[in-house]
């Protein structure tokens, strides 16, 4: 049975086209349509209900040591009020999930994970728990709204004291207030734009959503669905668990080497990841050079041989052409070289281009 977020009724009332996603019923788009929602975020701003994301609290005097053991990134120098992205790997170097760690204070961290992985992640963390750490799944306590796009800061400033605005990317303020609602605000997102993610108690979500819609009227803010969230992250070259990252596809293959710290003490998956000296496959970007729309799970051909497959693909609303993210044999496709993608039996001519496709 799919769950509803606290904003479900508002989505229905606002013309949201509801679909099941990651165990939740969420709008894939509103009547405005994916293209306009996407462009609003690139040019002005939009809000997304991302309450489906999971939240896991890690506390105790060995918390940092524990995170360094179960995650590939290094948390030794993370300071309170900041956040850090990390993959979480299994012993084989495959990816269990990718997540963001917020440091609230010494020995207290909030992990934000993909909705569909919440239970799996929680179980994995508990199974690998060390003494001096307690772990709790607090997903049901939080609602989460993402405010994304160049006008986001102006929208927040109009309803919130400047001192509650996190100044830097990946910084956060835990004890912030918007009007009289207690919130945690972080300068993070999944769109390739500046923006904020606002965490609040579940029963305040409707008030916050309404407040943002009202405050955003002068700033071009519109509600956006999962469809635009997906096209925005694709244009920005960001991986999505289940596509570019899976139990099989490790973080190095997915181009996340920056978030793997081999110089820290042992962590789960380290030896498997280290042994990938010559990566067999890697993540690349493809752009259509002729006509057609690239899709996920399509074979990629070079000189008649299959060299990989697409993991995400569609029409990129801001760029105005179709792109795909793909996993291909490491040396098979230098930047600028061409290949063909078999989309439902039709061969579409493509060129390998640099990732991200779009950079602000």
């Amino acid at each position: 049975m799919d769950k509803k977020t606290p904003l479900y009724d508002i989505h229905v009332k606002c013309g949201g086209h509801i679909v099941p996603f990651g165990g939740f019923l969420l709008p894939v788009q509103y009547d405005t349509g994916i293209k306009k929602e996407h462009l609003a975020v690139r040019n002005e701003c939009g809000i997304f209900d991302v309450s489906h994301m999971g939240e896991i609290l890690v506390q105790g005097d060995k918390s940092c040591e524990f995170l360094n053991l179960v995650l590939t990134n290094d948390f030794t120098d993370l300071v309170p009020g900041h956040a850090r992205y990390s993959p979480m790997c299994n012993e084989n170097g495959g990816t269990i999930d990718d997540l963001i760690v917020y440091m609230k204070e010494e020995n207290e961290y909030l992990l934000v994970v993909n909705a569909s992985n919440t239970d799996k992640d929680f179980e994995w963390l508990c199974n690998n728990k060390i003494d001096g750490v307690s772990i709790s799944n607090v997903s049901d306590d939080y609602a989460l709204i993402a405010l994304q796009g160049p006008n986001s800061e102006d929208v927040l400033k109009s309803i919130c004291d400047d001192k509650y605005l996190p100044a830097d990317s990946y910084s956060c303020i835990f004890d912030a207030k918007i009007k009289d609602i207690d919130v945690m605000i972080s300068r993070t997102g999944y769109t390739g734009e500046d923006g904020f993610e606002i965490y609040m108690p579940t029963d305040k979500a409707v008030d916050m959503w309404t407040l943002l819609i009202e405050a955003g009227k002068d700033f071009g803010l519109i509600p956006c669905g999962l469809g635009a969230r997906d096209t925005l992250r694709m244009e920005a070259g960001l991986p999505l668990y289940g596509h570019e990252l899976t139990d099989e596809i490790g973080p190095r293959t997915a181009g996340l080497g920056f978030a793997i710290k081999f110089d820290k003490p042992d962590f789960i998956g380290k030896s498997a990841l280290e042994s990938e000296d010559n990566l067999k496959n890697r993540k690349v970007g493809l752009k259509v050079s002729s006509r057609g729309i690239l899709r996920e799970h399509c074979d990629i051909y070079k000189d008649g041989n299959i060299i990989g497959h697409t993991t995400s693909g569609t029409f990129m609303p801001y760029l105005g052409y179709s792109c795909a993210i793909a996993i291909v044999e490491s040396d098979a496709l230098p930047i600028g070289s061409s290949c063909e993608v078999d989309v439902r039996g039709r061969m579409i001519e493509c060129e390998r281009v640099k990732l991200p496709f779009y950079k602000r």
Partner: protein
Amino acid sequence: MNDPRELMYTKDHEWIYYDGEDAYVGISDFAQQELGDLVFVNLPEVDDEVIAGESFGDVESVKAVSDVLSPVTGIVLEVNEEILEDASLINQDAFSAWFIKVGNITETEDLLTAEEYDRIIEG
């Protein structure tokens, strides 16, 4: 051909407009709304055969691909190059944005009047 009341429909949401012995085929306004922002269409080529009840092309939105079925069996006389260039024309006016013109029609699907089609989509 842009008065939707004058068109005939299939239960699969295509419309057909007879121009003498030949026919223009497109998708209904209801269909374009359901599909959302269209970004691409695949159409047959002139002189290709289309078969009643079978796919002759597809329409692609950001999220999905949907077959378009031919209401008639015949030969493609023309394809609408404009929607090949800009599929959003179908979203703007589904009844002007025809897909193909078919001639040598030898077979026709069971067609619905506008009133009958409305009852299906309202049901």
